[in-house]
């Protein structure tokens, strides 16, 4: 049994389980599934700076911080006790393309040749880690949610603005991965 759990889980197992997070949070306490709002709560808690957007009672949203702390611990547990024995099985054409940029280590879920403390102060490293993080945080709040709040919770409750947001997420990702990222990796 443990052997099966240690394999990477196929989409038709993982996807429905992720979907079940929606009713789980609703039934446990009428909470809407959403993750990026935790970043807003951090701002409201630590640096509200009299900005109206951060003036609200964040203590009521503490559940969200517990939730993301759980995700952090889940990552820790999965990698310690249930780690995959094999590297990620990727499409050969992606492997070939990445090798052009010197990315050949597929042992971790993060590309260790691009995302590491050593690479942080290089130009591509700064763009990917600092720039990418900033865009994720800024964009998610500007859009009013991220993949969980819009693509999963929003679509599950048939909100058409969430469909607009999800389509825009995908367009942005396509543009980045296909047309901009290659130039960054060549730097």
């Amino acid at each position, binding site marked *: 049994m443990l052997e099966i759990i240690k394999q990477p889980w196929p989409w038709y197992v993982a996807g429905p389980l992720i979907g079940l997070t*929606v009713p789980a949070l609703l039934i446990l306490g009428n909470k809407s599934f959403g993750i990026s709002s935790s970043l807003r709560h951090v701002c409201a808690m630590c640096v509200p700076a009299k900005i109206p957007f951060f003036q609200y009672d964040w203590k009521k949203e503490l559940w969200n911080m517990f939730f993301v702390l759980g995700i952090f*611990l*889940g990552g820790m547990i999965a990698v310690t006790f249930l780690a995959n024995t094999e590297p990620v099985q990727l499409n050969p054409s992606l492997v070939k393309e990445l090798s052009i940029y010197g990315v050949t280590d597929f042992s*971790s879920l993060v590309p260790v040749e691009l995302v590491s403390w050593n690479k942080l102060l290089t130009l591509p490293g700064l763009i990917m880690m600092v720039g990418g993080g900033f865009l*994720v945080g800024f964009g998610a709040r500007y859009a009013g949610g991220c*993949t969980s709040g819009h693509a999963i919770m929003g679509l599950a409750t048939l909100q058409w603005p969430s469909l607009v947001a999800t389509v825009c997420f995908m367009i942005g990702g396509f543009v980045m991965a296909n047309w901009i990222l290659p130039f960054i990796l060549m730097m």
Partner: protein
Amino acid sequence: MANSSVEQTAQSEHDIRATDSICINESQKQHKWYYNLKYLVVGLLFGVLFVKAEVISWFRIQEMFRLQSFHMYGIIGSAVLVGMISVWLIKRYRIKTISGEAITFTDKKFNKGQIYGGLLFGLGWGLTGACPGPLFAQIGMGATVVIVTLISAVAGTWVYGRFRDQLPH
């Protein structure tokens, strides 16, 4: 008089929270802090899922945006489908929370932020290979440098909040 001003504050508080369209569900019941531990457990299971299904893999996200694999589409698609059916069942049978409260849904209002913000978020997603959830799981996995990405995401959120009034919505 005093009463109406309290009501007004409550109203504007609701507005501020509703602009996020996420953090509006309020529980009328006052619970002790440790009631929140149940969300930690859900998060924990969710984090394990993220790792085991390779959702937090930068490579998997690159495959998705290059249309080289069905994996991520299958995950998001089936998650949405299961979520949709669950929400329908909750509404249909008026299922209540475990503490007996009604489950509520708030409609999201359209604004141009969903387009501009969505595109910017997408660019960031393609770069980092992680949306906010996976960032937490990646750090847990031991990729400590992702803390920098997370802090930067908090900074992005703050800058949005600071310049919110000047941005087109």
